[in-house]
């Protein structure tokens, strides 16, 4: 379902898909977000009123509106992704490195994965003991990071260095209605936010924060919110869709979100209780415009909103995510329709914002 044709909303077409492709193919593990930051800066500089990179590396963009009584609205999307860091060159000749994970990575799917390492995208592979030689006893235990190595090949140790980040080598592609890439969490949010900066509704001052270090504890957003001091905030993120059938064919009651059901509005996660006024505002906007939406199942996890809402004397906050399957693995899948509907919903919700919302009862 697409929004009613009378609504003027930013569209996702070939240019936006190309931008998402560049963003997801770029490597930006927490703390080393330069590659994505550069793309963001190139995109927003021509259209923004003010652009600044803060001490942690957050990109902060201000797009002023027109008219009186404008709300200062912070939108946050994190540039960083989960990945790996080289911690020791164990065999210089062979190019074997010990590594650690950065952010929430499960070790169960790491063996045999292709990686890109460092600023030059040096190829590597995660090695493990071959299945032929694994004992029954070893099969019972999950692989630990300590038992895995990154292999960059003989003579290549000098192409990378300790402290370099590595990400999955997956390249962006489209599969039917789906987007298939690494790091859709949260390049979908980044790409959405770039579009919103380019086509900001004039009734608000849009304060865009492209944040760093979200995957290691919402660190960038914390300082960005301190600086921007907004009236309210919306985090744009991507959240897991665990919507496959249950293995025993029982009803799946723990799906978190479902792909194809539209943008996921947060009511509660481990880090934030969303402001009820903002939840209502988003739901009413979606219903008025005929945009499908879903509530993310309340539960664990957290977004940049978790850091933002507790900043200074408090900032009413909510999150909206594009649902994605297999997030934090080498390949994630999201639906193009969910992304389109997310951009449309957030844009229309911003367009309908007035200072009255903060005077309303919660």
């Amino acid at each position: 379902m697409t929004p009613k044709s009378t609504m003027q909303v930013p569209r996702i077409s070939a240019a936006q898909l190309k931008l998402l492709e560049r963003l997801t193919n770029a490597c930006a593990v927490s703390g080393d977000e330069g590659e994505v930051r550069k793309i963001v800066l190139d995109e927003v500089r021509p259209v923004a009123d003010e652009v600044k990179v803060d001490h942690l590396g957050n990109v902060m963009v201000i797009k002023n509106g027109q008219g009186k009584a404008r709300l200062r609205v912070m939108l946050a999307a994190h540039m960083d992704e989960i990945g790996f860091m080289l911690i020791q060159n164990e065999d210089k000749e062979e190019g074997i490195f010990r590594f650690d994970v950065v952010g929430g990575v499960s070790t169960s799917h790491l063996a045999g994965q292709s990686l890109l390492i460092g600023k030059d995208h040096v190829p590597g592979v995660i090695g493990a003991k071959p299945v032929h030689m694994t004992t029954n006893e070893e099969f019972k235990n999950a692989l630990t990071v300590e038992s895995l190595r990154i292999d960059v090949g003989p003579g290549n140790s000098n192409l990378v260095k300790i402290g370099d980040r590595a990400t999955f080598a997956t390249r962006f592609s489209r599969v039917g209605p789906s987007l298939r890439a690494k790091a859709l969490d949260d390049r979908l949010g980044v790409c959405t936010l770039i579009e919103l900066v380019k086509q900001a509704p004039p009734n608000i001052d849009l304060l865009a924060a492209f944040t760093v270090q979200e995957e290691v504890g919402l660190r960038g957003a914390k300082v960005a919110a301190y600086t921007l001091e907004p009236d309210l905030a919306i985090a744009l993120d991507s959240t897991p869709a665990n919507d496959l059938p249950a293995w025993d064919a029982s009803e799946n009651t723990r799906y978190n979100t479902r792909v194809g059901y539209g943008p996921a509005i947060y009511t509660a996660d481990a880090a934030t209780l969303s402001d009820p006024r903002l939840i209502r505002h988003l739901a009413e906007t979606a219903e008025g415009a005929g945009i499908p939406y879903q509530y993310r199942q309340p539960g664990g996890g957290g977004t940049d909103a978790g850091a933002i809402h507790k900043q200074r004397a408090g900032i009413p906050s909510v999150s909206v995510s594009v649902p994605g399957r297999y997030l934090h693995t080498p390949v994630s899948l999201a639906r193009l329709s969910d992304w389109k509907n997310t951009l449309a919903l957030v844009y229309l919700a911003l367009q309908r914002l007035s200072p009255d919302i903060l005077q309303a009862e919660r």
Partner: protein
Amino acid sequence: MKSLIQKLVETPGPSGYESKIRQVVRQEIETLADDVRVDAMGNLIALKGSQKPDGKRIMLAAHMDEIGLIATHIDDNGYVRFTTIGGVRAHSCPGGRVHFLNGAKGVIGVEYKENQNEAFSFEQMFIDLGVTIRKDCPVRVGDVAVFERPFIDLGERLVAKSMDDRIGVAVLIETLRQIKDTPHELHFVISVQEEVGVRGATTAAYGIDPELGLAVDVTGTGDTPKGIKMEVGLGKGPAIKVRDAGMLADPRVVNWMVDTAEKNEIPYQFEILEKGGTDARAIQLTRAGVPAGCLSIPCRYVHSPSEMVDYQDVLNAVRLLTELLSQPVDLEQS
């Protein structure tokens, strides 16, 4: 004061959804305070007095939110799956009655198990709202509920859900009523979202930027059969917190509270709580740091739907807090 307590505990207000209880408290304090406002997080803040040369800017905090439940899934037959808001204990849920903020009511049922004595996890529970298909279910994902349990007056002991921390709210309201004269600028913060990690007090403390902070909250007791080993007991007076898992109370604040209790012959006890924390932690750690402490109301069965306090402890807490706030405070002398 019992009717005030009853009114407070019978009003629903899970963390993040404190509108109704905020309205009830606001009506109580509107005429008692010099100014009343609601901040960006939803904290209700009453101002009393202005700062004299020997006075301080003091933040008092008692949280109005309570633990509760939030719907995560409505199944084909209209049963509601849920997760918790704050530290709800699984063993106190089965058979419980819940009350959604939209008015819907239901009971908590559990899945069948061979061994019925085995503990149930939240994933094995559901809420039955008396409907048979999803479309008739009056609850949707994200709707919140609290436990339904009437207030009972056992004479010297009072029992209800959400004594944690409506009893603290009652103490702040009553103290605000009784304070005649103060050298201080007093900010009575009826805070939100304490049960999910002292979030309301965090932002309130930043906004107020106090020179001294006190939380009023409940604490556990060690006076029940085979209970936790703890010094505090019901009826031995309000407790002066020395330490909990989230805070080492400022020793000067502890001394100030002890001296004031001694001078006014108000019974008190010392509290060391090995688990849990209060809004005082958020106050202590805001900005460049604030001297902070906590006045605790001893409470049995905390985070169950039947929390019990001693009425004399409550009255003595009001007396002690009123004395503390009516005189200049010199922490260097304490």
